[in-house]
């Protein structure tokens, strides 16, 4: 699969090279405050209101984590360790605050170390805050999280005069909806028989939107969409795959899958777009709307009452995007996704969707093994397809 290179794509690619990319630098120069976050359940509108903007914590190009190994031990997931390693190396000195959620044991401990090791301590205003996101959705939990979010907002207003209030939150929701409509119009291009955008390209574009202020991306995104609309698709017989699992923020993973005569048409992983492009209710209490939206749409295995819903969600997405198989990737040492596999794999098979389970690290190690597994999976789907055609004859 060789598609004509998109001119606008290099702009998005450049944003993923370094945590402090040129748009982040520009925003900071304008007096805006970068807020580090690392989970879907930290609501983006909350940290996009007023003077603040969100930056998804990543560690692009990291190869080893010696310092984080010492503090977090060798049995913690490599994503949690990698962002701490970058924190210890000073790569995140530019963030004004780190707001993370009590998403999982690993992320909690990693975030706590930013505080315990006094990282960014030179900046008097810097703080870390753990959002106490419940593991289930009910009214009591929604109100609990609203109160917690308000405490985080108070801290941001107090330390940075961030101007976050109900009005700016409403505005932030509107802006995000507008952005997501635009993003979805690009994401939907993956649904057709001949997608005009590859999974790798989309992942780069979507990923860039998580690491830079969204308002600075609207125009480039519009130009990209125009370019895509005029683009001819070269995709013919590639096997259409969906990728499911925890965090992937390195497009090389998707590229590796697509190099095996496949195309990734749907992405249900942290840092992916499903869920991620749904619209938030703009009427009524913005806090309530935000919390309800993120708790209800979250499809992470941390949500303890949604196991069966996750299987249904993925099987519906697979149908909607016409995916022929699912790559279920789990991060080594991740307990939540490790357990998820016990019920998820059988659940997906029951929907007659082929699935392969692959364990990986945050950085692209074990590339050969990963490639071989995908190759074999793609071949098995193709063989089955050919066999069913022959049977019909």
């Amino acid at each position, binding site marked *: 699969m060789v598609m004509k290179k998109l001119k606008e794509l290099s702009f998005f690619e450049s944003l993923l090279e370094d945590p402090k990319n040129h748009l982040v630098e520009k925003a900071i120069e304008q007096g805006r405050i970068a807020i580090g976050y690392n989970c879907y359940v930290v609501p983006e509108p909350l940290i996009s209101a007023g003077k603040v903007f969100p930056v998804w914590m990543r560690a692009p190009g990291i190869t080893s984590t010696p310092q984080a190994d010492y503090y977090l031990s060798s049995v913690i997931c490599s994503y949690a360790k990698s962002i701490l390693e970058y924190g210890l190396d000073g790569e995140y000195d530019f963030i004004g605050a780190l707001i993370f959620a009590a998403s999982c*044991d690993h992320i*909690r401990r990693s975030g706590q170390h930013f505080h315990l090791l006094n990282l960014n301590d030179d900046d008097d205003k810097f703080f870390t805050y*753990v959002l106490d996101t419940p593991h289930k959705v009910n009214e009591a939990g929604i109100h609990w999280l609203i109160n917690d979010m308000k405490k985080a907002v108070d801290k941001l207003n107090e330390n940075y005069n961030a101007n976050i209030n109900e009005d700016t939150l409403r505005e932030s929701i509107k802006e995000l909806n507008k952005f997501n409509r635009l993003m979805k119009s690009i994401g939907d291009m993956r649904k057709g028989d001949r997608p005009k955008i590859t999974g790798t390209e989309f992942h780069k574009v979507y990923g860039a939107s998580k690491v830079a202020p969204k308002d600075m991306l609207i125009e480039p995104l519009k130009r990209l969409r125009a370019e895509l609309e005029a683009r001819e698709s070269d995709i013919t017989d590639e096997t259409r795959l969906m990728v499911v699992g925890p965090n992937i923020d390195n497009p090389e993973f998707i590229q590796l899958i697509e190099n095996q005569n496949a195309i990734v048409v749907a992405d249900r992983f942290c840092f992916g777009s499903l869920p991620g492009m749904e619209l938030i209710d703009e009427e009524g209490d913005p806090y309530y709307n935000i919390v309800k939206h993120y708790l209800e749409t979250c499809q992470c295995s941390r949500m*303890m009452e949604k196991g069966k819903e996750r299987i249904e969600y993925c099987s519906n997405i697979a149908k909607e995007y016409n995916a022929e198989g699912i790559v279920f990737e789990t991060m080594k040492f991740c307990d939540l996704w490790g357990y998820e*596999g016990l*019920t998820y794999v059988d659940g997906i098979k029951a929907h007659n969707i082929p699935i392969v389970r692959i364990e990986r690290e945050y950085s692209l190690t074990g590339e050969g093994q990963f490639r071989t597994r995908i190759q074999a999976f793609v071949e098995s789907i193709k063989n089955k397809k050919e066999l069913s055609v022959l049977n019909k004859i």
Partner: protein
Amino acid sequence: MEVSKELNINKKTSVFRIIRNNYVNYRYWRKNWFCMNMMALTAPKTIFKGMFKYTWLYDLLKSNIMVDLYTNKRSGPNYDKVHMHLSFTIKSFSDMYKNALKNPDKVVIIQNMVPPQILHAMGLTSVVPEVAAVVLPKIDQFAGVRYLDAAESKGLPGDTCGLPRLTAGIALKKEVPIGSCIISSNLPCDGGLASYEVIQESIGNIPIYRLNVPYDFRNDESIDTYVEDLKGMIEFLEKNTDGKMNWDKLREVCRNYNKMVEIELERWELAKAEVPPVSNDALWFPHYFAFNVAVANKRLVKHHSKLLKMDKKAYKKGKICFEGMRYRTVMWNPPPSVYGHIWNWLERCWGVGSVMDLETYGVMEYVDTSTPDTMLKGLGRAYMWATMSKHTRGPAENMIGDLLRAVEEYKPDFVIYPAHMGCKNSMSLEALMKEECKKRKVPFCVFRYDLVDSRVTTRQQMREQINKFMIDVMKAEPLDSSLLTIDDTGEGHW
């Protein structure tokens, strides 16, 4: 501080002690068999059928082997207390499983750390699947292997915590007793939370209620939220079982619970003494059982009162918890289940007594029994602040801060940190705990292990790590050098 430097054990005492201890051992051996036989005799058909379905029941029959491992050649007040408590536990478990098998309609499967008091007040029987996972490896280090293999062959990574992994394995082999519904929670960790999806599916998708404990439970708002959740649980139970909430019964349980708290606090105080009358599993096991698994009834209060009486008697006589105690320590992580009797070895090989441990040290507060709300609030607090939830789920300051408080209060010669490789929450704080102890000039002994699988780290490998620390850091001589290396990699009895 070498507490028993002056201790002299003369030979006459030793001979008398051997005869006495053998008699005590025989008495409990007989009692334990009696309890297990009674379980079978009161419901012979059910138990007989159950043995085919729940194969771990066979392993429970080997309980007296575990008692031997725990008590063999031990001395002092700890010996009697451990015997007494193990016997009490065997009887309690026999009763629990007997009731569960006889009255399956009344059974509710509850996760470890769900308050069983509430179910008891509703006239329901609770079965905690994790109990089998804790007990089996203690009885026989390989008894859990078939369940671990079942979970791993289904795709569960071997690096997850062994406790929920073994429990999931029991469920996958369809050996969790059937109940009418399940109550689980997000405690104590991600593994515990996630394992109930597979447990529910394996036992036929019966209704489940999931309790959500807030991350930071140090304020009143979090307790109020949890109380609302507990009310939701009661409503769920009334809808899905024959149980009805009886607040008077709950009041009675809470009053008993308060008595238990009183006893426990006294025991903690006694453990602080320069010549401690209680330590190791004589302190750890009763707490673990009473505050994690059991419902506080009169029998439990009576049992603990007896333990306290024995502690006090020893204290008054200036009798140390075991002969030859040279070092006091604080054990800051769960002891390995596959080497449940490590206390025995620590006492006899190195003279080490743990006067406080992570699973015991927590918040002991009385439950206000004046209204239903105050009772739920009190129980809610007790479970939110219970050891595993407090240290593994809450902010890092809980685990580190409590360790430093325990060090301050119990003045250990060193801290012993069993590094359970599946516990991400504690492993990720090891470095900081070590650094804090170093600042206070308290040596920090780390030994790595897998909680329920001795194929990962054998018992001898655990011992070697401790031996190295004792020789290199503490510059200690073993009390009995024949115990430095023991061949118990098989099911050997030492």
